[in-house]
């Protein structure tokens, strides 16, 4: 079956797939614990019957019963040597059952173990395992392939590459989702973009859930789908009834979702676990009058990792491509790459993304190292560290191929020029792995000086790319930035190229920004101005240093001015916090009430200055404490009790109080106003054997800021030490925390020692496994949470 014939199947009709096979064969007598594929091959009459039931029910495409017949999975049954033969046989059986009008899809699914980095299976091992299966299915005469029930996008890619490297038959790929993402965390759009770019002829989801939950997945894929979309859900959820697994949805209810799924964008429907030929028959009835919804044909420039998709367009917020993973001129990175040390790569990746990079450029160009090995290692590290998509910056075809092959998303190649060799080597590579590419307007004659010459090269390369099926949406043109230090007119030529690409040719653009100022002092001024000018001319992306904050300020501001940041939302989100902080400082100069507000707001940054302003204004320290701070912290507690505040707000209030008291305390001491400052002395500790103490630390901080003198002994503290300290300081309360049932007995030990020593102080306890009855049983008082510990302590010292 050709790809064209496959697309024709979807003309003005909903394509029907088959339903669950496992249940049918189990009912036909397949025992548990056997290799299902082997058993089916040995019981071909039963398998033919099951397939025929689906053909008769109306399936346009049936799947071979080879779900788990890849070499790795078959090795669980010691059958890996039979991979080709078994797949051939099962495909032939399906062919026999299908008749003339039903197509056979060679079914491939997971190898049963996770691929690297999640598991131990190497990418190429998985590709080889699938290839053996593909070979057998091809020999058995399948019309097309289906890769289904994949949890990990990388494994789906491995299977797709295996098929593509052995034949040109159409391939459908469906993944299984858990809520809004696949089990390994990919979102529907990234799944779609990755797979359709890589050459899948239909994409979608199967298994996962019932039909209702699948609607949202299909809806999300629909706007970006260039290929038909598939929905093949389960018959609801499984339950156990009289010792048998049954699904909770009947055929009629299942099929009633057909209209909704088609409206959401599904072009092909079928069933997965729990569905039978009756479900397909009902689906046929429900879909006969349905037609696939017309799709918007707008081309999108989409690049993605396995978890995140970025759309590039001159009307969307500017896309910053982080430039710092390039060893040129960076001694430390160069050394790290030479030594194969990827820690620094991870750190640079993380810091660029935190600073606002939406894509990361990766370059492994260091003299004397194996670029292929290093680029691949850098790609793996970046993928494991951040979620943003990548730009592969290399002219080495071999290195590019190995990186593209293992990248679990859609990358951008930086770059393909008009040089003959580049076109011949790199365009097929970009096509094979579905990558976007940066078009560098340079040819074998060198770097053209004028915009007109560069535009000619852009047209030429684009015409070549079109032959491979690339559209303008798959290309970013490099405006080609040269330094103005050697030729001042070159910046204007670059701007002309950008403007032409954006306004006339309608293609995205990029620049390597910092080249413009090379050789000049104070380069950041030139860079910032040039960036603004280029954005005004329609620049979509730039490769720059996102850790240069002034550059990022420029990007944010330009997005607002060019109406790329709708309603200035991103700008306001980014800067609103800083504005508020300044306002608070100003307000705090005006009145004591504002200091109260600052404690309530837990504003640690502004509170010290506010207290100083109060003191400068002549207010007495004790008045500030008694009339502002204490009422404020009490109000924070009240709000927490009413659940209007949650724990971090309670803590922030206490932290703000702590800062305020630090400014106030010297004044209180100076004026002897500090005599009655604390309510009492508390010795606090996490008990012996308990090494987790954040809960105790929160309690200690709150107690301090509600006026107690707290002596914190830390964690894993011996009972004797607690007793000695309490005696030494004449403590009013011993407060103990324990997280585990195995350690809470230490509380009893402390209490017994207290009694032995005849101590009159109270014992207060808390922690995850404690309750009031345990506290009472050892003669202690129980505090359920940090704030109740404060209230309890206040009661105990009354």
């Amino acid at each position, binding site marked *: 079956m050709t790809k064209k014939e496959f697309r024709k199947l979807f003309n003005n009709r909903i394509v029907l797939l088959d339903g669950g096979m*496992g249940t049918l064969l189990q009912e036909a007598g397949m025992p*548990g614990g056997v290799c*299902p594929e082997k058993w089916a091959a040995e019981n071909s009459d039963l398998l033919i019957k099951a397939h025929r039931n689906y053909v008769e029910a109306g399936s346009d495409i049936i799947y071979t019963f080879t*779900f*788990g017949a890849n070499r790795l999975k078959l090795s669980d049954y010691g059958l890996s040597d039979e991979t080709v033969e078994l797949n051939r046989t099962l495909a032939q059986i399906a062919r026999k059952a299908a008749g003339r009008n039903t197509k056979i899809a060679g079914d491939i699914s*997971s190898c*049963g173990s*996770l691929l690297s*980095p*999640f*598991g*131990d299976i190497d990418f190429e091992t998985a590709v080889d395992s699938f290839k053996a299966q593909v070979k057998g299915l091809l020999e058995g005469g399948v019309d097309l392939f289906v890769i289904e*029930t994949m*949890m990990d996008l990388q494994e789906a890619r491995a299977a797709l590459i295996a098929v593509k490297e052995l034949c040109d038959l159409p391939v459908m790929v469906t993944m*299984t989702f*858990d809520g*809004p993402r696949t*089990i*390994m*965390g990919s979102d529907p759009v990234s799944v779609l973009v990755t797979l359709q770019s890589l050459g899948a002829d239909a994409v979608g989801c199967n*298994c996962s859930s019932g039909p209702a939950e699948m609607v949202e997945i299909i809806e999300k894929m629909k706007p970006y789908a260039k290929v038909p979309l598939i929905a093949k859900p*389960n018959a609801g959820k*499984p339950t*156990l009834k009289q010792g*048998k*697994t049954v699904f909770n949805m009947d055929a009629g209810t299942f099929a009633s979702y057909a209209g909704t799924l088609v409206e959401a964008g599904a072009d092909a429907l079928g069933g997965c*676990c729990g569905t039978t030929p009756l479900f397909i028959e009902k689906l046929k009835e429900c879909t006969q009058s349905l037609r696939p919804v017309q799709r918007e044909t707008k081309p999108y420039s989409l690049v993605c990792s396995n978890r995140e998709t970025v759309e590039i367009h001159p009307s969307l917020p500017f896309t910053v491509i982080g430039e710092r993973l390039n060893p040129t001129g960076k001694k430390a990175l160069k050394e790290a790459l030479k030594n194969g040390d990827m820690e620094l790569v991870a750190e640079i990746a*993380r810091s660029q993304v935190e600073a606002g990079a939406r894509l990361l450029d990766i370059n492994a160009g260091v003299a004397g190292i194996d670029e292929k090995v290093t680029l691949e290692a850098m790609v793996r590290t970046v993928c494991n*560290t*951040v*979620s943003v998509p990548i730009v592969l910056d290399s002219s080495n075809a071999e290195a590019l191929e190995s990186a593209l092959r293992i990248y679990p998303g859609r990358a951008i190649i930086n770059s393909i020029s008009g040089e003959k060799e580049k076109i011949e080597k790199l365009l097929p590579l970009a096509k094979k792995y579905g990558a976007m590419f940066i078009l560098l307007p340079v040819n074998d004659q060198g770097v053209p000086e004028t915009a007109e010459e560069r535009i000619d090269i852009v047209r030429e390369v684009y015409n070549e790319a079109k032959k491979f099926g690339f559209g303008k949406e798959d290309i970013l043109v490099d405006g080609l930035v040269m330094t103005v230090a050697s030729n001042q007119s070159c910046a204007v030529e670059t701007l002309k190229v950008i403007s032409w690409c954006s306004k006339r040719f309608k293609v995205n653009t990029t620049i390597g920004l910092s080249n413009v100022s090379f050789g000049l002092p104070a380069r950041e001024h030139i860079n910032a101005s040039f960036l603004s000018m280029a954005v005004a001319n329609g620049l979509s992306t730039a490769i720059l240093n996102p850790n240069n904050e002034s550059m990022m300020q420029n990007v944010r501001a330009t997005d607002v001015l060019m109406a790329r940041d709708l309603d200035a939302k991103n700008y306001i*989100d980014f800067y*609103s*916090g800083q504005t*508020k902080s300044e306002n608070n400082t100003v307000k705090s100069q005006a009145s004591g009430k504002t200091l109260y507000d600052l404690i309530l707001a*837990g504003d640690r940054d502004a509170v010290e200055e506010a207290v100083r302003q109060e003191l400068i204004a002549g207010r007495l320290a004790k008045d500030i404490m008694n009339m502002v701070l204490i009422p404020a912290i009490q109000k924070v507690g009240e709000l927490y009790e*009413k*659940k*209007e*505040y*949650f*724990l*971090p*707000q309670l*803590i*922030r209030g206490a*932290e703000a109080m702590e800062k305020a008291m630090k400014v106030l305390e010297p004044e209180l001491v100076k004026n002897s106003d500090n005599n009655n400052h604390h309510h009492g002395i508390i010795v606090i500790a996490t008990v012996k*054997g*308990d090494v*987790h103490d*954040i809960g105790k*630390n*929160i309690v200690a*901080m709150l107690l301090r800021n509600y006026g107690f003198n707290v002596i914190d002994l830390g964690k894993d503290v011996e009972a004797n030490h607690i007793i000695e300290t309490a005696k030494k300081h004449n403590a009013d309360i011993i407060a103990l925390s324990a997280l*585990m*049932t*195995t*350690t809470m007995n230490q509380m009893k030990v402390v209490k017994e020692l207290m009694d032995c020593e005849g101590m009159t102080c109270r014992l207060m306890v808390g922690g995850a*496994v404690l309750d009031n009855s345990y506290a009472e049983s050892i003669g202690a008082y129980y505090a359920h*949470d940090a704030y109740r510990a404060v209230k309890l302590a206040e009661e105990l010292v009354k």
Partner: protein
Amino acid sequence: MHEIKVLKCLKPVYNKSLILSRLGYDKKRTVLSGEAMREVERLILYTEKNLNLKAAYRVMDIIRIDAPQVVLSDGTVLSGMKLSELLKDSKEALIMCATGGSKIMELIERLQAEGKMSEAAIVDAAASEITDSALDLVMNMVGQYLRPKGQFLTKMRFSPGYGDFDITQQRDFYRLLDGETLGISITDTCMLIPEKSVFAIAGIIGK
């Protein structure tokens, strides 16, 4: 599927509202400005980035359930009434573990040392929840492997330390999943280090 399978570099889907619940957030009553919520979200993302999530699991046959005792194929005896109830329809059990690694604990300590206790509390809650979500991921993944065989997992899972399922049984889980290879250590009092580590068991239902 009976050997120990180890999963690395996990980025599970997690529910932000469960992190907020751990911090006492009440959807109807807690008042939080947009800016404060963004700060919480930033800290959750920070946690996500700094967790080094690994998980391990194995499937074991259940030889006998004689409430409260559950006897596994290697002779391990687990004990708990609710556990026995959970596993009553199961002939096999999924034993699993997830750990967030030591770096996140160092960062929580550092935040506390810097006097940023509220941030530490948020990161701590987020780390607990996201580590727990890694067990959801394991269950979803194993559930998917089981489905074609007509099997599925119990909705619930139990961890030692809850109800009458004694915390000391963490030692059995530690042994069964070879906790050391995941970088976990266990104290005499059965505490797990790094703290953001969790063991659990669920039942496999169906033939």
